[in-house]
């Protein structure tokens, strides 16, 4: 029980190492190893969540070295929920990737699974850690795995991966500079210790510069406007099986990191805090509008969803920019909801590609007859993106809007409304294509049009996402209650 935080991160790490070896035996064995590990992590993260709700935040000191000398894992309710989210989507993605293995080459399949496992490890570590340099290490683990996974996506994937590598490394470097400045001021690397020292003796000018670097770094990693350039091609060409994980979750963890820095380390009493709020506000508004506008123009559904992700990250950052407890809850609720929404949409489009071999929008005519559940998920996820109740997208918007109204920033409410409507344009275009447009010649001629809708391995994630979007919406008050335990202390 005491070691839960580290075990959660350790299991996928160990499985990653074993997977490559075990795959030599049978190419599927490696996958089951990792799946078992991730499921184990999922169970443990749920246990950890319950422990944190009952007893308060958990500190885990590595090697029993007390802070500030040792490294610690610090888990409060916000972390714990994100850990559960990562494990859940990780497990679903694992189930989902099976039919995509186009080859039975042991090394290749083993390597792909290893990479996904490492990605999950990196994300889990980034979420759970309480040490800033440790965060850098896990950040780079995540990024490297992502580069590799994206490069598995075909010829265009390799170039996209290389470009992402350059951009991502620049971002990590900037992060390191920010950490360096903060270390130079405080002399410590532990988050809570840093927070205590900064609030007493912080050099405000240097902190401001450090924050600029940090915003640039995290902004690039989560593809916030104007740092989003790498994202559309990267998401489009990533390996189809890992795309839901990369797009659904990987972008969110840097946002969580930004939250930790802004609210926990810097604290709302920091002299220039308002400046950050304004800067983040501007960036989020631009993201929301730019992402939606670019998404409207796309013909390939994967690119459309990638630009839509830029817009959705804007919502989360808007929550950080408003700063009141409810707004922060809205941001995190949107984080969870969007993981299922975007993940769900990528699950669905991957399934369509698997069955019909195309992702161009004009080929989607009337596929709902052949794939009712998948299209049901498409509809629910689209409605959630637009913000129609009772899906989770509506409720996260509600909290963001209430937060904005509370601080009198009506401009944010206007942007929220506008962005919902822009979302409606291209998501209803999608729905129209799926349900109304005449059947495309391409899809009719395909032999795969018969038979079961999609293999069971793909069906489970689709159904789970469908239910999650609705259940998260209906029971959002409970989640907000859990989040409030941690957020009340740090919010504006």
């Amino acid at each position, binding site marked *: 029980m005491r070691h839960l935080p580290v075990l959660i991160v350790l299991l996928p790490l160990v499985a990653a190492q074993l997977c490559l070896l075990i795959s030599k035996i049978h190419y599927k064995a490696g996958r089951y190893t990792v799946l078992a590990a991730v499921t184990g992590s999922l169970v443990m993260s749920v246990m950890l969540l319950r422990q944190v709700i009952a007893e308060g935040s958990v500190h885990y000191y590595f090697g029993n070295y007390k802070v500030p000398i040792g490294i610690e894992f610090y888990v409060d309710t916000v972390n714990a929920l994100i850990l559960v989210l990562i494990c859940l989507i990780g497990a679903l993605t694992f189930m989902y990737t099976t039919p995509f293995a186009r080859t039975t080459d042991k090394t290749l399949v083993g390597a792909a699974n290893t990479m996904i496992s490492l990605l999950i490890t990196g994300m889990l570590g980034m979420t759970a850690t309480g040490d800033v340099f440790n965060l850098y290490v896990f950040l780079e683990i995540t990024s490297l795995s992502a580069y590799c996974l994206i490069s598995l996506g075909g010829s265009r994937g390799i170039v996209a991966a290389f470009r992402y590598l350059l951009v991502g490394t620049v971002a990590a470097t900037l992060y390191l500079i920010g950490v360096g400045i903060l270390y130079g001021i405080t002399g410590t690397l532990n988050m809570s210790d840093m927070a205590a020292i900064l609030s007493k003796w912080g050099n405000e000018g240097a902190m401001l510069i450090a924050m600029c670097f940090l915003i640039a770094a995290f902004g690039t990693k989560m593809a916030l406007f104007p740092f989003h350039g790498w994202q559309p091609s990267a998401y489009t060409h990533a390996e189809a099986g890992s795309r839901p994980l990369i797009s659904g979750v990987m972008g969110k963890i840097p946002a969580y990191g930004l939250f930790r820095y802004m609210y926990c380390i810097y604290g709302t009493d920091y002299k220039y805090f308002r400046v950050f709020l304004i800067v983040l506000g501007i960036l989020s508004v631009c993201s929301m509008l730019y992402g939606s506008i670019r998404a409207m123009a796309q013909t390939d559904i994967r690119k459309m969803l990638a630009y839509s992700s830029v817009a959705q990250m804007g919502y989360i950052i808007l929550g950080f920019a408003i700063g009141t407890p*409810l707004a922060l*809850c809205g941001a995190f609720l949107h984080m969870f909801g969007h993981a299922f929404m975007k993940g769900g949409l990528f699950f669905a489009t991957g399934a369509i590609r698997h069955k019909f071999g195309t992702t161009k929008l004009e080929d989607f005519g009337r596929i709902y007859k052949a794939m009712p559940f998948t299209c049901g998920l498409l509809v629910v996820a689209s*409605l959630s993106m*637009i*913000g*129609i*109740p*009772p899906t989770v997208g*509506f*409720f996260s*918007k*509600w*909290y963001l*809007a*209430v937060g*904005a*109204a*509370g601080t009198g920033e*009506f401009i944010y*409410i*206007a942007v*929220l*409304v506008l962005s*919902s*409507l822009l979302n*409606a344009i291209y998501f*209803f275009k999608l729905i*129209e294509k799926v*349900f*109304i447009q*005449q059947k495309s010649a391409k899809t009719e001629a395909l032999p795969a049009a018969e038979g079961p809708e999609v293999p069971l391995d793909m069906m489970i994630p689709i159904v789970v996402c469908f239910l999650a979007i609705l259940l998260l919406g*209906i*029971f*959002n*008050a409970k989640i*907000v*209650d859990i989040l409030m335990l941690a957020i009340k202390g740090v919010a504006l």
Partner: protein
Amino acid sequence: MISITALSLRPALAVLTTLIASGLIYVTGERVKANTREAITFVAAFINAALVYSMIPAVLAGKTIKLTVIEIVKGIGFAFNVDAAGMVFACVSATLWILTSLYSVGYMRGHGEKNQTGYFAAFAMCICAATGICFAGNLITFFIFFEALTIATYPLVVHYRDEEGTRSGRKYLAYTLISGQIMFAAIVIVYVCCGTLDFVPGGFIKPEDIPMPLMLILFFMMVGAGMVKAGVMPLHSWLPAAMVAPTPVSALLHAVAVVKAGAFATLRVVLYVFGPESAEYCHGADILAWMAVITILVSSLIAIRKDNLKARLAFSTIGQLSYIVLGICILSPSAAAGALYHIVAHAFMKITLFMAAGAIFVTTHKKNISEMVGIGKRMPVTMTAFAVASVGIAGFPFIVGFVSKANIIVGALEQGKPLFACTLIASALLALAYLMPVVYMAFKKDVTNPDFPCKAEASKPMLIPLVITAVIAVVLGVCPNFGLHLYDLACMAGNAIFGIGGSLL
């Protein structure tokens, strides 16, 4: 949490039944025989009606039935609160679902329609949303069902999956979604200013709560969604465009669910959220009343010029719905009661007219009035029902339209706004002008139309509902409280809003 008794579960059960029915039809529709699928609709319709009717005695006695299901957002519950106003609308929608379902069966089969499963599933979903709108106890629950109604009606509007259907679907969505989102923004601001969203007869926004220019802007932001759905000009153009849908859909959309939900939304916003005091203080009620007047007159004038029967009826609907809006904005108990009762009245009359139009289309394939000369010879029962309903729309005594109109006129005079009364009388004459020619042409004796040689009525499933609604229109006109005591309920609501008669909520 309020203790759950069988009494208080009924609003949730009513909504749940329709929801389950919709899901069942969608999932099993293609795989079972058509009769089984239709049976699901009818069983659900009867259960729904039974649940709704069973709550009337409690509401008549002055109680309201409350139920909070779950905390839906931090601080607000997903709450049902069945009061007199909601009861009126709910009874109408429950009754008419049964009748329109029967009619739909006849129409769809007679016309050989495709996509019937989607149609019936969406139908059930609409009724679910409409029932939810009636019984919602606070603005958030209301908004959830309101948006659900938008989404549920979209498949109905684009039923004929062709170019025109898609375009009108887009127009419909554009109007309803934009106004819905603006209403969302308004709800958020009201919540932050007033701290509560529960519907209270007489409103919960006091003039001191919100500064004046903001209050007027909020008023129109909130009412906007209702205005769009109720077709108040200039936000009405989706209605004629949406007529490309099959006639039962038009009957449902234009007589029962969507437009009435819009009018009901206006009622809730003006009288249960803002309240007469604030509505008058910010002049919102005044402005809206004049917009309603313009709508009534202009739509009637446009209706006179339309040759397509359904188009004419659509513009008539726009005008009639603005009666309700006008009645709400006059801010008097009688006018409010009249507006509520007009929901009932207009529903029955207009649905008769639409059903007749659909029957004509299915049996003779005629859409334009100019082609319908002498049709009375072929379909006398249908056209008689049409004539009765037309006369009722104009407001003749002994047909139900007169009751509601009289109440609104009395209310207008009570408030000292005689101009509104004149508008109503003028529009009655205009209504005669656009409906009587149809009747006249149908029953012209001296012309023999080669298309209509002999008597050949519409099929039974189509004929029976429209006769029933016509009969109900007459019965309610003579005895407004017959059966479900709808008139009493409407008056109760009116009194409750204005705090008269020591009402207990």
